[in-house]
């Protein structure tokens, strides 16, 4: 059955990229103008858009390693979208350059509005921030390249016992991802409020990225599921596995979020509580409620049922909703900390996301179209369907 995988998924992917190209040019121009008008505000919008976009490739790296470790049909069918997303990491690194250069404008610990006390200042300073970002991207790109390269080799030569090789690097990849994303989340997002600290934040941020990547990959598989080579391969069994995993991920996310909230709320310390106090005014509580509704309650109730999981339409809707909620959640993390006007959306936010997501998606579709949509020598049938 793996032999139908030879057809390239090029045509549909190219159709997607044309629409994108048109939509991307205008927002980029507007974002450039926003930079000229109000650099701190524009940078803040840019940071948010960057975090939304970067969540998919970074999370894909973790998921790619996870599916090599656990095996299973869900991972095989999802492997190519994940690999394509991982191959966009160099572009993501490029997109980070404005943040690395603008850190001294954006972050309170660098722009003079907060002075870090002694040991902390060793961590929160611009050169260290840039250096660490370089390390994160280097680690991710190297690991992603190795995983991608081996996957190509497997397609080409089909060496025996290659799964074992994948597993050998997948474990360390997950570990390194966990470590790097923790510090990346502290650097990029948590340090916007330099007094605040939550030791679970790295895990919360990482699980969020994996969630983004997972729903994105589900959407990609569903999008191409009625075309070769995926047509006839994707069955109810796959959808059920996606649904079960998505259910697990949203539950983990909710568990981490609510734990952080309960602990900070009940301890009520002056270093920590302001984080939630800040987010209990204006639009923020409403937004939090919507995020919880879209990223937990709705997926939870839909995916708890057998039909909710196995139905491509409901699964697609849930995935889309979670992807949107992820953007809102990151906005809720980042925007209340802005030094500019607190409780309104900025117009630069509206252009920043399309300006970054457009080119990224274009690059992604190009990468996706370069390889067959299914690995050639790996069986994509769910385990229970094997008794044919």
């Amino acid at each position: 059955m793996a032999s139908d995988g030879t057809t390239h998924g090029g045509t549909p992917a190219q159709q997607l990229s044309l629409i994108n190209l048109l939509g991307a040019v205008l927002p980029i121009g507007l974002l450039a103008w926003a930079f000229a008008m109000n650099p701190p505000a524009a940078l803040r919008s840019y940071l948010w858009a960057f975090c939304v976009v970067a969540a998919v490739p970074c999370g894909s790296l973790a998921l790619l390693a996870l599916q090599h470790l656990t095996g299973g049909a869900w991972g095989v069918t999802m492997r190519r979208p994940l690999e394509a997303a991982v191959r966009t990491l160099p572009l993501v690194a490029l997109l980070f350059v404005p943040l690395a250069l603008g850190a001294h404008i954006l972050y309170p610990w660098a722009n003079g509005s907060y002075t870090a006390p002694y040991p902390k200042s060793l961590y929160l300073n611009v050169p260290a921030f840039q250096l660490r970002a370089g390390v994160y991207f280097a680690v991710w790109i190297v690991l992603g390249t190795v995983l991608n390269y081996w996957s190509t080799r497997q397609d080409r030569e089909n060496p025996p016992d290659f799964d074992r090789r994948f597993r050998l690097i997948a474990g360390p990849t997950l570990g390194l991802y966990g470590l790097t994303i923790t510090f990346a989340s502290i650097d990029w997002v948590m340090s916007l409020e330099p007094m605040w600290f939550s030791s679970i934040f790295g895990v919360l941020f990482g699980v969020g990225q994996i969630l983004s990547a997972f729903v994105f990959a589900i959407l990609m598989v569903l999008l191409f599921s009625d075309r070769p080579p995926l047509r006839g391969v994707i069955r109810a069994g796959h959808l059920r596995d996606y649904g079960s995993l998505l259910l697990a991920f949203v539950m983990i996310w909710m568990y981490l979020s609510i734990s952080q909230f309960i602990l900070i709320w009940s301890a009520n310390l002056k270093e920590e509580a302001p984080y939630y106090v800040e987010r209990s005014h204006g639009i923020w509580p409403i937004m939090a409620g919507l995020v919880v509704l879209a990223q937990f309650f709705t997926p939870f109730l839909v995916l708890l049922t057998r039909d909710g999981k196995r139905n491509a339409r409901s699964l697609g809707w849930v995935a889309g909703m979670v992807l949107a909620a992820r953007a809102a959640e990151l906005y809720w993390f980042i925007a209340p900390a802005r030094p500019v006007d607190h409780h309104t959306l900025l117009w630069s936010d509206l252009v920043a996301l399309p300006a970054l997501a457009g080119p990224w998606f274009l690059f992604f579709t190009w990468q996706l179209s370069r390889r067959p949509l299914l690995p050639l020598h790996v069986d994509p049938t769910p385990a229970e369907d094997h008794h044919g």
Partner: protein
Amino acid sequence: MTEPQATTGQQVLAPGHSMASITDKVSAIVLTRPVGKRWLFGFTLGFILTCVLFTTIANLLVTGVGIWGLNAPVGWGFDIINFVWWIGIGHAGTLISAILLLLRQNWRTSINRFAEAMTLFAVSCAGLYPLLHMGRPWFFYWLMPIPNTMELWPQWRSPLIWDVFAVSTYASVSALFWYVGLIPDLATLRDRTTSRLGRMVYGVLAMGWRNSAKHWHQYETAYNLLAGLCTPLVVSVHTVVSFDFAVGVVPGWHATVFPPYFVAGAIFAGFAMVLILCIPIRAVYGLQDFITMKHLENMGKILLATCLMVSYGYAMEIFTAFYTANTYEEYLMHNRLHGPYATSYYALWFCNLIVPQVLWFKWARTNVWVLFIVSLAVSVGMWLERFVIIVLSLSRDFMPSMWGQYRGTPWDWSMYVGTIGLFITLLFLFLRFLPVISIFEMRTLLPEAKVGDHGEHS
């Protein structure tokens, strides 16, 4: 396409077995095997230690909690350390039986029965501690929201009261899950035993199981529902335990990473205990065909994965102290590294972080001795972890004028050793009177069960 299934089946069950040989082999441990010297030795040892436990409890009830080493700054000592240690150990049982069942990991089949039993025994040991820590345990029902003339209510904002509900729910659902899983095997024992008493006891416990299709259908539904119920419980119990600490603002306790870090630690400790029990049991009872190297290796992998998660927790604790630049958090780290209990902290690192790293290698994961030693180290390390968290934080918190020292008294130790004895006793009784491996689930691993099962569908 039955090939992949057959190979997986072989890995978790040695080849050459039939339905009858599995039933014979497992039920013989209970029914026909004579009481051996080794069993007698183990049971006697456990029983003596249980007597030590009862002596301690008697003294405790007569004299009071003053016989323990608790003092003014250190109000939680061995009692809470051991409570957390035991309850953590229990988690592996539920994880193996519920989560791995839902994930359709068929390698769980031969180890789930005694892992679940281990859960129940560990929770029994754990439950003793907070109960006796109350000082007047006969008032335990005050923990329940019972209407009373003094209008005294539990403090619902305290995680300690959540613990009462979390642990009792966990214990009752785990017991139910274990018992439901036992019913078909109890019926097998009822049918095969030659003694009249055995027929009566197993017959009553089997609740009239006749192997009818209807029975099996209801059984499957009940078992899967209970598995679904158990899954959140695994997470909730240790999360609430972590809240017991994290809600307090004591340095070293209030960390938002505590909930997942405690859950990972519980699974880490639990799998170590499963390995400690599993390795001798399979050797003594000749169960190498059922509990294969594949099982041990998989457990080794889980041990390594949870070791890394726990290490992440330690790393974040250190980083927090540095990043927050908070005097008290910084001092806590200093105290851990250079204070009077520094040895415990270094020993904890050695046992929990360094020793398990050997599991990166396949030769280590497939060597029973290495696995056994690593598991022992982890069990010690996880005890030390709770010691470090509880005693180090309490003995030196904010005001130097309120600092103190803590050490366990002989009664603390006798209570700890006594609960280990209780655990051993219960385990040996279980080995003697109930099938240690799920007979009917093992039969489903046979290749012929696969063909019969799915043949008509395709």
